[in-house]
């Protein structure tokens, strides 16, 4: 069989709810193990091995939870919006399930980015909060998530709820480049990016490696939550089908 056929076969199978359910179940324990290992490496590296910052002293260590949370708040939103678009255009149910499963964890990451940023801001800027462009647009992101969750909860019909929420998510995408470029477009208190300048990263390698480990750990953690939630959603959505019946009565 050619490679292309194999790929198509895989896509075809993933479209089958029973197959996806089992695949997600097999992937989950590995995903949890990888998350724990990476997070331990990131925590030890970030809290112990990384040298203290020359300006911020030990206080800079908050970035190891703040920056991954902030990255994930935008990443999860994009996953939600793209799957919303796929659901609107091609009516693929799995996309709606992925979008629905991402909302609460995405809102959590956004909350964590704001909370840890605020805790960092107190000793460094001397204030918990300023209405600057980066902070305000990130707060708007939190409200978008909450609106998304509320909208879904308010509509009983799952299909209608999915469509309405997807439209909301797509309209809100405009906020993502605003968050990203806010530090460039406006003269804000928030510092500009140090990591994405890959040609000349302005961060020491011993500081960078734990940060990348934490970022990957957060991404994998999101995947764990996504796998668990989408399995629950899938069971709910397919509860009348034969495969679900066989699954729940056999165990």
């Amino acid at each position, binding site marked *: 069989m050619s490679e292309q056929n194999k790929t198509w076969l895989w896509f075809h199978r993933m479209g089958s709810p029973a197959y996806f359910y089992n695949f997600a179940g097999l992937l989950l324990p590995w995903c949890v193990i990888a998350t724990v290992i990476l997070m331990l490496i990131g925590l030890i590296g970030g809290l*112990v091995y990384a040298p203290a910052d020359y300006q911020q002293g*030990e206080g800079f260590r908050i970035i190891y939870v703040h920056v991954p949370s902030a990255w994930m708040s935008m990443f999860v939103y994009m996953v939600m919006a793209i799957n919303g678009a796929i659901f609107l255009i091609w009516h693929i149910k799995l996309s709606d399930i992925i979008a629905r499963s991402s909302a609460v964890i995405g809102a959590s990451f956004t909350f964590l980015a704001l909370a840890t940023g605020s805790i960092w801001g107190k000793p460094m800027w001397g204030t918990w909060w300023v209405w600057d462009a980066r902070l305000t647009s990130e707060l708007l992101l939190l409200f978008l998530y909450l609106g998304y969750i509320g909208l879904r909860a308010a509509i009983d019909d799952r299909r209608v709820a999915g469509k309405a929420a997807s439209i909301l998510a797509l309209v809100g995408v405009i906020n993502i480049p605003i968050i990203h470029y806010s530090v460039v477009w406006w003269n804000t208190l928030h510092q500009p990016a140090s990591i994405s300048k890959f040609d000349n990263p302005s961060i020491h390698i011993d500081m960078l490696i734990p940060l990348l480990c934490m970022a990957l750990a957060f991404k994998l953690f999101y995947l764990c939550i996504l796998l668990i939630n989408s399995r629950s959603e899938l069971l709910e959505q397919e509860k009348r089908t034969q495969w679900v019946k066989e699954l729940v009565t056999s165990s």
Partner: protein
Amino acid sequence: MMEFLHMGGYAGYIWSSYGIVMVVLLLNLFFSWRRHQTVLRRLKQLHSSGNNES
């Protein structure tokens, strides 16, 4: 060890940030997992009771 926990005077800020992150992440994991178990249990009841009404 005390020096490590002290974090050069930033102890309160650092440990509260790490604490809040761990608590929120673990709560997400807990509620997702509990919900999955609840769904499994409910569907088991639905199918084993023999009626397909509810």
